[in-house]
């Protein structure tokens, strides 16, 4: 240690230099501490901004604009439910020109619209989903045929975005998707109290669609569930059995060392590489069906395997040796010690690790893109070998869509995804709290 030459020994602690030095050191201390606090605050801020941004944008995605219209439902167009079987009636309703009925009711509201092209523009304030909506309504209530009904019908996505204030109506007409003419019509409807934003169950119950107002996440949720099911079936037993072998039976030799290094390295391999593996092996070599939850599940299982193995090993290691000794002392074979005593005691820890691994798999997108689970799929997937998509992939697909309304649908889908992730993690935490034992 070199002594500062300016200070004569013995040190004069109350000298000007020393006091200045102390003050400087304290200032540095405060700055350093503030920097640390700042770093934590910035991270927290990022989290708040990220979640706040998603929630503020996404809440609108659960709601949709409806317009009230009085629709004439004539027998001539829809068919007579009293003279037909239910199937015949449903068929005839499906064939009926529903948009024509809606157009007729619009004529009554807007008598000033006369030209053909304007009429065609006018009907566009409604979603094309109105057809299905009306058909369903009529099929479920056959006795409305021949009457006039006041109905809330789905507005088109552009009108919906105007009502929600996501499209700036002040900008030049050419710069926005909604013309001044449409705005005037909308204004008239709003003045009559016939426009309302309502909770939109279709979003939670239907599959994907090209039209944002009719798109839903249910297909993706089911696809994710099927994929995770396959993942769990494969990764959980294999992971746990591997952990048991490594912790309890493996001799200390080169092969075991190699296994351990290997597992740790696998845990750090980028997920997209697992996608390439899945593409080359499961699709390229085994010719399993593309875009199927089966292949997605296999790929994600290989990816989550290291997580499950590492967590299970920790849980098995935490079971005290006295348990094993006692069981051995009473004559249990090594296998019986593991499967009757150690494993049940380690199970909460293993399950916690498994759920966390599953949550990772649920949020994973890149490997699924590689194996083609990125197709546009309207139907709800029904099996593990059919084409399906997954929730995070759905987010990716919608985020890429040009329609403005898909931005809020994307945020809403992210909210659904985060909801499932939070639920899974909450279960994991509860499990840990409930069964955690101190030995």
């Amino acid at each position: 240690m070199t002594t500062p030459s300016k200070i004569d020994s013995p040190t004069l602690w109350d000298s000007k230099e020393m006091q200045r030095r102390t003050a400087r050191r304290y200032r540095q201390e405060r700055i350093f501490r503030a920097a640390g606090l700042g770093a934590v605050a910035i991270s927290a801020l990022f989290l708040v901004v990220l979640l706040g941004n998603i929630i503020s944008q996404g809440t609108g995605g659960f709601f949709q604009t409806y317009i009230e219209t009085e629709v004439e439902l004539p027998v001539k167009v829809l068919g007579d439910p009293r003279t037909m079987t239910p199937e015949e009636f449903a068929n005839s309703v499906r064939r009926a020109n529903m948009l024509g009925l809606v157009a007729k009711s619009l004529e009554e509201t807007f008598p000033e619209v006369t030209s053909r092209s304007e009429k065609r523009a006018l009907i566009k304030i409604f979603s094309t989903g109105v057809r299905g909506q009306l058909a369903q309504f009529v099929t479920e209530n056959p006795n409305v045929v021949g009457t006039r009904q006041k109905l809330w019908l789905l507005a088109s996505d552009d009108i919906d975005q105007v009502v929600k204030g996501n499209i700036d109506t002040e900008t030049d007409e050419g710069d926005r998707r909604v013309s001044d003419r449409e705005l005037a019509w909308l204004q008239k409807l709003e003045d009559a109290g016939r426009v309302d934003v309502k909770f939109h169950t279709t979003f939670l119950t239907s599959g994907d669609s090209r039209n944002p107002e009719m798109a839903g996440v249910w297909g993706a949720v089911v696809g994710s569930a099927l994929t995770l099911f396959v993942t769990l079936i494969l990764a959980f037993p294999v992971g746990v059995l591997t952990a048991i072998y490594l912790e309890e039976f493996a001799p200390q030799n080169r092969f075991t060392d190699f296994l351990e290094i290997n597992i740790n390295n696998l845990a750090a391999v980028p997920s997209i590489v697992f996608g390439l593996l899945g593409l080359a092996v499961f699709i390229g070599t085994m010719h399993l069906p593309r875009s199927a939850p089966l292949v997605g599940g296999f790929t994600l299982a290989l990816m989550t395997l290291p997580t499950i193995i590492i967590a299970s090993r920790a849980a098995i290691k935490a079971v005290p040796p006295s348990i094993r000794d006692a069981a051995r002392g009473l004559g249990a074979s090594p296998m019986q010690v593991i499967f009757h005593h150690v494993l049940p005691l380690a199970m909460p820890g293993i399950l916690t690790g498994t759920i966390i691994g599953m949550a990772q798999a649920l949020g994973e997108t890149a490997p699924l893109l590689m194996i083609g689970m990125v197709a546009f799929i309207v139907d709800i997937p029904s099996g593990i070998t059919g084409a399906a998509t997954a929730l995070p992939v759905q987010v990716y697909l919608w985020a890429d869509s040009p329609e403005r309304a898909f931005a809020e649908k994307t945020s809403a889908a992210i909210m659904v995804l985060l909801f499932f992730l939070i639920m899974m993690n909450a279960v994991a935490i509860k499990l840990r709290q409930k069964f955690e034992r101190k030995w």
Partner: protein
Amino acid sequence: MTSSAISVIILLLSLAAFAAGRQRSLATVGGRRSDLHSLPRHYGYFAASLVILPSTLILVLWLTFGDFVLERMTMNSIPEGAVATEGVEDHLVLNRVRIAVDQGDRVEKDPTILAAAKFYREAHGEAVWVTFAAALLAGLAGLAFALKATSPEFRARNKVETIMRVVLIACSTLAVLTTVGIVASLLFESLRFFQQVPISEFLFGLKWSPQTALRADQVGSSGAFGAVPLFAGTLLISLLAMAVAGPIGLLAAIYLTQYASGRVRAVAKPALEILAGVPTVVYGFFAALTIAPLFRDMGLSVGLDIASESALAAGVVMGIMIIPFVSSLSDDAITAVPRSLSDGSLALGATPSETIRKVILPAALPGIVGAFLLAVSRAVGETMIVVMAAGMQPNLTANPFEAVTTVTVQIVALLTGDQEFDSAKTLSAFALGLVLFVVTLFFNMIAIRVVRKYREIYD
């Protein structure tokens, strides 16, 4: 679905075998359980595992190698010197056969290929039944053997435990098989790619435009596969990410371990964990729709031209994603420094920050370096953020305001949508994947090495 049907049949058969083995063991001793060597259920387990293991093995073998063998047989069935195969490589012919198998004679007109497709279809149909029959027979043979072996002296429990041990070992080799699979598939496809494009051009070429011709005689058909712009883009974005995550993550770890009260720690640590648990596709969406426009507007207001898919936006958001990664690993490294060291420093009159900078950080340095290296490897392999927020143009630039593309973006771009397995375009994705795998593996190995080698052993 025949394969799920056969799985169910085998499962049911093994359940029946369990019951049969159990009954049989009881029958041999006339119901006196104490005369048996093992518990009756052990005889059941033995019978069930002798059914399920051989038949599953056959099914797995069929699934893995069946198609390969069938394709070889199909290729051999094509007569030598047939017009369609003259001077064409084998795998191109095979591709045509495969298309013919899927679509019949709608696209394929050549009778040789159609005959091969017919041969394949028939052979496939036969092979499926042969495999299923073999699996079933193997299961039944196992059952017969187990029932024959069942006697009071038969050590069923020991046998079951031996089988169990084999199963355990088999499971743990799956992790090795995964690695082998990754390396093999990447290497195999990459080697095919390097037959078409020299490896030096791939690693050092400056132009990336992976268009290949649809027809061989097309003008300007050769694409350029120089991956340097992709490496540069990946490097740029990773550096930006580390510039955000490094300082913030390390400082946050220092604050949380050294200064924060228990209450702050109890709130801040889970918050960081939430940040780590958010799926990357969410970050990508956030980067593309919120941060990128924000940066562009900010750039416009000060007269800077920032691309709407700038490297900056992707890098910053990726940095946010990596913060918890850096902070939790650094946290572990800092906490591992023994208390006596900092106590000694504080007792000599050093302020807490001096203690941290001059005593704790040097002691924890290997762990922190390891954390940074792992974070870099994470940034290099990250896909969704860059796919959604970074561009597609292979720009060779160090300017973070411009759009760049990365290795992962190109892999996704090359492999999504319809593709055939043999074009250089598709194969180049595997070469990129190989580079990615090697680089991240390298970083991980170094990280582990650094932590192991330079860790001070206290106590």
